[in-house]
């Protein structure tokens, strides 16, 4: 049997050439978890010295209230509330002495759930549904701006808050694999064991307790 080694080597290099741009080396960073001071709900945060991404649980009830107050019907708000929504704070925390520009695209992020690889449900996907359902314009506008931008470029100290949607039911756990570019160089990071908020009502606090 005879091999054309040149052809095989060429094919290997072509294969590497295709795969290399998709590879994003993991960036050095840490994941911290705890209770968000303002929301008093669990958060998961990936951070290094240039970037931080914090996902704060949103109770389905909060989401229902927010969107019904902005013109969605109860059933439409229910669909959003059941979609595993997180308040997301994405920051470029680079300092002037060590600047860095961050660019991200949420359509490249992966949601790992029970062995499946899924995508986030970004605002454009939702928007198509709302247009089909003829949701009133003010409600659509509020929804569009309430979700975090799908693509964004952050200079040092820029940041956004907004909701992200994972298309999972309340109480489910998932891993999130994120990719971004720092000064044009592709990088990646992961947060494991994120938990969608359960569909529960908060117990009223005892003001004297």
């Amino acid at each position: 049997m005879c091999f054309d080694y040149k052809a095989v080597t060429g094919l290997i290099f072509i294969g590497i050439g295709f795969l290399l741009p998709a590879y994003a080396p993991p960036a050095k960073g840490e994941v911290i978890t705890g209770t968000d001071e303002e929301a008093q709900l669990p958060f998961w945060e990936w951070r290094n010295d240039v970037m931080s991404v914090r996902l704060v649980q949103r109770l389905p009830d909060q989401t229902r209230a927010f969107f019904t107050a902005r013109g969605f019907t109860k059933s439409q708000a229910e669909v959003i509330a059941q979609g595993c929504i997180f308040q997301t704070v994405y920051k470029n925390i680079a300092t002037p002495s060590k600047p860095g520009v961050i660019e991200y695209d949420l359509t490249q992020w992966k949601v790992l759930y029970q062995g499946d690889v899924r995508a986030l449900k970004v605002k454009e996907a939702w928007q198509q549904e709302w247009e089909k359902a003829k949701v009133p314009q003010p409600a659509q506008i509020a929804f569009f701006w309430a979700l975090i931008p799908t693509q964004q470029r952050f200079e040092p100290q820029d940041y956004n808050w907004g909701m992200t949607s994972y298309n999972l039911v309340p109480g489910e756990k998932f891993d999130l694999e994120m990719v971004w570019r720092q000064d044009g160089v592709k990088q990646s990071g992961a947060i494991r064991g994120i938990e969608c908020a359960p569909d529960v009502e908060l117990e009223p606090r005892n003001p004297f307790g």
Partner: protein
Amino acid sequence: MRNYSRFVVFPITFVMTFFITLMFATVVYAEKSQPLHPVTGTPMAPDFSLNDIDGKPHALQDYRGMVVIINFWATWCPPCRYELPSMERAYQRLKKQGIEMLAINVGEDADTIFTFTVDYPVTFPLLMDLDSKVIKDYPVVGLPTTYVVDSKGRLVYRAIGTREWDDAALMQKILDLKK
């Protein structure tokens, strides 16, 4: 022989300590600065005409020749709320220098905004972009986003997210546009 070392060592130590402290303070100050990022190409700011919550129309053209800060916001947006008090403090100082500030609310009506101003009183015009047409004309993808327009009507600076608008260095950068 008399010991003169303290006359030499003490002043040198004092001077060195002073400069090290100054350097440290400069670095800390720079790290805490509130950056405004230059807009590439300084394109012309898209014109608009919007009513404020009292029904008074405001066209960007009316402010030609002035430096104008244009802030896009919404009442339900937490970082938008955070920066409103510092915007008001900055406005109180900058308006005396002939600099205008316009806050364009996205998609909310006059009643909603008026109710909101009970908790967040501001004196600069609050304009209503009810159908979000104006925000779509601007290169804005998230709230809050703020642009600074120079006296020739060009977009010169941009900030995504909250800033402390009454930060001295930030305000100076805006004042420098008047020169």
